[in-house]
């Protein structure tokens, strides 16, 4: 099975063409378009926004509110849309309801069964608490995110640098998503991260931190973040080099009848070798993904 590489997901306002255009020209792996509920623009114009957003090779999602799944999906899911970013769902029934409407949309658009994905955005404590159940409702759910801005609103906390009220919730999202075979995607409240200043270095630092908590990608608040987010979730040249060394040293050790050896004082055994293998596979998958985008 092909490794899913969707590191950056740029969320943009789709009320005008500028957001979609900027997102489409960014290096984003995915773009989520947020249409206003009272957006009744002509269909060709809406189709064009989707086309522009995906012009750079990004997968295109449209944001759908759980309380308006029927209306949102039937109007927003159109040619070129890869999936919905479902926000506000707290129960399995709400996800099943979205799935039923997606099925109708797939038939209408003559799309293969299962081709429209659900990016599940958890936006309340209840949803985070119920994640183990929610992520397993539909095979269409491949990625899960916890909208920490919505969570902050729900907690009634004002974001402050250096104070992180979401460590536990974040850990739950990572563990339960991976246990269910889904990818957890970070959606951090930027203001809570002490070291993040605006600019590429800060975004890269934040993305790297999220990667090292187990997230596989990050929601990006701006198209100009996409490159740094991609870099944060792509193995660095140093990681690739070290992983290659681990694989070589471990293979030599196994051939010599040992499966625990040392590199610079660190213990190398089966899980370390397997992790090195996954790092190299991810690096190759990221390179392939970036190459496909560049060829557009």
């Amino acid at each position: 099975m092909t490794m899913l590489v969707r590191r950056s997901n740029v969320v943009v306002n789709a009320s005008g063409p500028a957001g979609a255009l900027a997102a489409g020209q960014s290096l984003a792996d995915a773009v989520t378009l947020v249409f206003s509920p009272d957006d009744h623009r002509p269909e060709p114009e809406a189709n064009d926004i989707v086309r522009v957003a995906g012009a750079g090779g990004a997968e295109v999602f449209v944001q759908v509110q759980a309380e308006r799944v029927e209306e949102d999906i039937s109007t927003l899911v159109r040619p070129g849309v890869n999936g919905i970013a479902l926000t506000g769902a707290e129960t399995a029934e709400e996800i099943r309801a979205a799935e039923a409407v997606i099925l109708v949309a797939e038939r209408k658009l003559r799309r293969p069964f299962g081709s429209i994905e659900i990016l599940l955005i958890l936006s309340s404590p209840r949803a985070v608490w119920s994640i183990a159940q929610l992520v397993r409702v539909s095979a269409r759910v491949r990625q899960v995110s916890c909208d920490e801005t919505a969570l902050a609103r729900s907690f009634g906390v004002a974001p402050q640098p250096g104070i992180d009220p979401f460590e536990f919730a974040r850990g739950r999202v990572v563990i339960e998503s991976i246990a269910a075979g889904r990818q957890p995607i970070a959606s951090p409240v930027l203001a809570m991260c002490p070291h993040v200043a605006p600019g590429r270095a800060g975004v890269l630092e934040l993305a790297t931190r999220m990667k090292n908590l187990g997230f596989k990608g990050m929601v990006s608040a701006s198209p100009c973040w996409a490159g740094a987010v991609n870099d944060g979730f792509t193995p660095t040249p140093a990681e690739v080099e070290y992983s290659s060394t681990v694989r070589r040293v471990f293979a030599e050790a196994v051939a010599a009848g040992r499966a625990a050896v040392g590199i610079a004082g660190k213990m190398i055994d089966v899980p370390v070798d397997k992790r090195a293998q996954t790092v190299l596979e991810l690096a190759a998958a990221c390179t392939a993904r970036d190459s496909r985008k560049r060829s557009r």
Partner: protein
Amino acid sequence: VTRTPVARSMLYMPVVERRFVTAAWRRGSDAIILDLEDSVPPHLKAHARTLVKEAIGLAARGGAWICVRINSESVLEDLDAVVWPGLDLVIRPKAEHAVEISEVDAALSGLERARSIEPGTIAIWPLIETAAGVTNAYEIAAASDRVTMFGGGQGYDMSLDLGVAMFGGFDQFLYGRGEAELASRALGKEPANCLFYPDESGEVADAAWARAYAETLKSCGFRTSTALHPGAVDALNQGMTPTPAEIEAARSVLAREGHLALAEEGWIEAGGQVIDCYEVDRARRLIEWAQACATHDAAKDRAVAAMVDAEPGSAP
């Protein structure tokens, strides 16, 4: 809490490395973990199984209690090879479901009967090493009365499953190890491998780091630790053993227990210290733990002395 034997240092060693196994008695560790899993190459697994029966006796000569880490892919085959008199505990790695532990329990019962081992004496430590294991931690820990130790939620396999770096110096496993520890404590098991302590080097022989880690373990209520290198063993033993000052302070608290019983309020003040029921209970536990450590250390010393007597010139 179902207390395990004193296990401040549980030293892993590949059972296929005979020089490690024959030297195990010199290491001073409270327990030896004979490994059939990740430190044994796949093509040597079958051979490794044939070595365990003898290795149990060899490794135990220094007074350590003996554990075996089996493979999650060949549980019954491994158990059949490792359950012999002298085995104290089986580590079931990558535990993800309660039924896996029930399976080990049933197999142990049958093998104990067949091999004249007192029924129910071999314990199980289910290791939580995947996200799926974390989600089912409580059920796994509760699956058998043989589970005396429980924990995990961090480490190399967890790093693999989550796709995170091991030695970032920050707590990437907070949720997983927290869940595992909570399940363990809720069920009265000995929590193990559940503490975060910053480590940016990953050096397995770093005695200074091991000492600081062990002292933190002790202060957080943990009594067990594992080691991947003999160089960490002494540091772990010393760091987790109550110091003379701690023992003296505990005795001082216990000496005032009678005053507490007569106090109108639920606490008294002595030497600038507030003493209440919690402090008394903690002092009592510390004294018991210190005595257990001393008893185990004395047993190890006797075992080592016997070995040196038997083999002059072989002192550790």
